[in-house]
C-alpha cells in the first residue's frame, strides 16, 4: 500500500544542493566539459546512447556528467528525455553492408575480401596500466595507408552462395516497437532484437557467457564484427522522397553457429545477430549469442531449460532502467507497509509463544502424570 506522506522538502532540497557540490568535486580541479566527456570517454557515451536508446553523443555526455559517471543513472536520464520528444517517423533500415568501417574482423575467414581491419582496438594491448596517461602529453598521429573507397561486403554473403548458412527471410514488414506496445509473449525476433539492443550490457554479457559455458551451448564463432558509420535515410512525408537525415556509428556482430539440423531445417550454419549504437563490441557479441540462443523454437531445437533460452526471463530482466527502478524503490518510505508487517509478525509471535507455553504446560502435566 502506498500512502502519501508530507514532509522532508527542506531535507530533499538540501540533499540536492549537496549533490550538486559533490558532483563538482574539488573546485581546485578543472571542471569537465561536455566536449571532454564526449571526446575522451567516448565508450561510456556509446553505452549510454545504446542503452538509453537515443543516439545523441552530446546529450549522453551531459547525462554522464549529471549522473557523476553512474552510467545506469545517465541511461535513466536519457530514457526520461526521449519520452519528451515527438517522433517524426522511422528510418529506412540501415544498410550495414555500406558501412564505412573503422574496424572489421572475422574469426572464421582469414582472407575475406576487404581484409581484417583491426581499427582502434584494445585487443593485443597488454592490459598494463600506462602511467604516461597520468601526465598530459601530445599523442602521436596514427599511421595511415591508402584508404579503401568501396564498401566492404558482409562475410556471410559469401557463404550464402553455397546455401550452407541459413538465409535471413526478406521482408519489409513494419517491426513491432516495445516502446509503444506492451510486451506480450512469445515475442517476435524483431521485438527480441530491439529489447537486446537497449538491454543492460552486464546482464547480456553474463547470459552470453552462460551459453558458452554449456547452458544452451550453441558453438558460436564471430563470423564478422564491424564498427563504423552508416548514413541513416528517412522518407520525408511532405516531400515524398528519401533523404539522409544523419549518420550513426554502429557495431554489428554476426555469429556463425554450428547446427546439426532439426526436423524442419537441414544441417547448416545458423546465425545470431547483434547491432548496437556506437563502438560497443562486447555488447554486440553478447547480443548475437543471446539472440541465437533465443531462436531455439524457430530452428526446431530442444528447450534445454537454460536461462538464455527463456525469452520471458531474458526480455523481462534485460532492461536496467526497469530493473533498477523496481530494485531501488524498496529503499523509499514503506512505513505503512512495514507497520502492518510488524503487527502481523508480533501477532504471530504472540500466538507462537502462547502455543509453546500451552505445549510446555501440557508436557509438564504429562510429566507429572507419568511420575505419579
Amino acid at each position, binding site marked *: 500500500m502506498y500512502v502519501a506522506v508530507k514532509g522532508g522538502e527542506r531535507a530533499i532540497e538540501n540533499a540536492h544542493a549537496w549533490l550538486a557540490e559533490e558532483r563538482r568535486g574539488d573546485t581546485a580541479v578543472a571542471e569537465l566539459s561536455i566536449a571532454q566527456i564526449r571526446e575522451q570517454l567516448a565508450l561510456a557515451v556509446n553505452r549510454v546512447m545504446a542503452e538509453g536508446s537515443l543516439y545523441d553523443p552530446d546529450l549522453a555526455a551531459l547525462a554522464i556528467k549529471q549522473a557523476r559517471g553512474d552510467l545506469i543513472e545517465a541511461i535513466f536520464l536519457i530514457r526520461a528525455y526521449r519520452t519528451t520528444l515527438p517522433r517524426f517517423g522511422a528510418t529506412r533500415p540501415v544498410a550495414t553492408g555500406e558501412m564505412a568501417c573503422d574496424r572489421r574482423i572475422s574469426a572464421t575467414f582469414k582472407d575475406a575480401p576487404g581484409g581484417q581491419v583491426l581499427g582502434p582496438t584494445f585487443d593485443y594491448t597488454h592490459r598494463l596500466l600506462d602511467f604516461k596517461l597520468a601526465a598530459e602529453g601530445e599523442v602521436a598521429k596514427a599511421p595511415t595507408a591508402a584508404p579503401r573507397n568501396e564498401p566492404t561486403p558482409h562475410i556471410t554473403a559469401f557463404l550464402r552462395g553455397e546455401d550452407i548458412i541459413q538465409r535471413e527471410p526478406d*521482408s519489409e514488414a513494419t517491426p513491432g516497437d516495445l516502446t509503444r506496445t506492451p510486451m506480450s509473449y512469445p515475442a517476435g525476433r*524483431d521485438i527480441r532484437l530491439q529489447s537486446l539492443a537497449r538491454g543492460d550490457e552486464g546482464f547480456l554479457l553474463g547470459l552470453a557467457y552462460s551459453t558458452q559455458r554449456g547452458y544452451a551451448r550453441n558453438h558460436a564463432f564471430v563470423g564478422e564484427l564491424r564498427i563504423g558509420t552508416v*548514413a541513416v535515410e528517412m522518407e520525408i512525408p511532405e516531400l515524398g522522397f528519401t533523404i539522409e*537525415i544523419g549518420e550513426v556509428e554502429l557495431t554489428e556482430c554476426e555469429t556463425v553457429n554450428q547446427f546439426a539440423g532439426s526436423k524442419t531445417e537441414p544441417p547448416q550454419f545458423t546465425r545470431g545477430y547483434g547491432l548496437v549504437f556506437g563502438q560497443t563490441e562486447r555488447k554486440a557479441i553478447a547480443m548475437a549469442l543471446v539472440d541465437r540462443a533465443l531462436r531455439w523454437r524457430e530452428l526446431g531445437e530442444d528447450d534445454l531449460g537454460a536461462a538464455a533460452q527463456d525469452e520471458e526471463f531474458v526480455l523481462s530482466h534485460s532492461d536496467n532502467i526497469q530493473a533498477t527502478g523496481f530494485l531501488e524503490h524498496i529503499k523509499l518510505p514503506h512505513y505503512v507497509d512495514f507497520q502492518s508487517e510488524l503487527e502481523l509478525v508480533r501477532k504471530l509471535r504472540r500466538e507462537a509463544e502462547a502455543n509453546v507455553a500451552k505445549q510446555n504446560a501440557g508436557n509438564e502435566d504429562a510429566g507429572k502424570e507419568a511420575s505419579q
Partner: protein
Amino acid sequence: MAIQTENDVVTQARRDWMSLLAKAPEDRLLALWADYGAAPAFDWLRRPEIGAVMVRGRMGGTGAPFNLGEMTVTRCALTLADGTVGHGYVQGRGKPKAEVAALIDALMQTPEAGALRAAILDPLAGTMDAASTARAARAAATKVDFFTLVRGED
C-alpha cells in the same frame, strides 16, 4: 537503365544537398553561412522543433527490419518572400543548423544556387570527405597482411 526524367534529376540534386546539410557539422555549416553573408527575409511554416526518429536495422544485416533505437533530429520549414519553400531536417538538436539548412534548401531552388554551391555546399562536402578519408586511411593502416611482413604497394 531507367529513363531519368527532368523531375528525377531535380529531386536527386535536392536529396543530395539536403543529405549533406543534415549530416554536416553544425559549427562548420554556421561559419560558412555567416561568411556567405546572406540574410534573406522569410516566414516560418514550421518553427524549428526537436524530435526523434526511430532508426531501424535488419536481422542478420539483410533480413526483416527491427527497431534499433532513436536518434535526435531537428526540423523546420520556411518560405522566402518569393514563395519558395525550404525544408530543414538535420541530425541532432541544433535549431540554428535546421534554420540555415532550410534557408539553403530554399535558396538552392533559386538562381542563387550556383553561388551557394560554391560558397557553402562544396566546401562543406570537402570538409566532410576529408574527415571520412582520414578515418578510412587510419583504418587501412590497421589492416592485417598475412602474407608479407611489409605492406608496400606505394
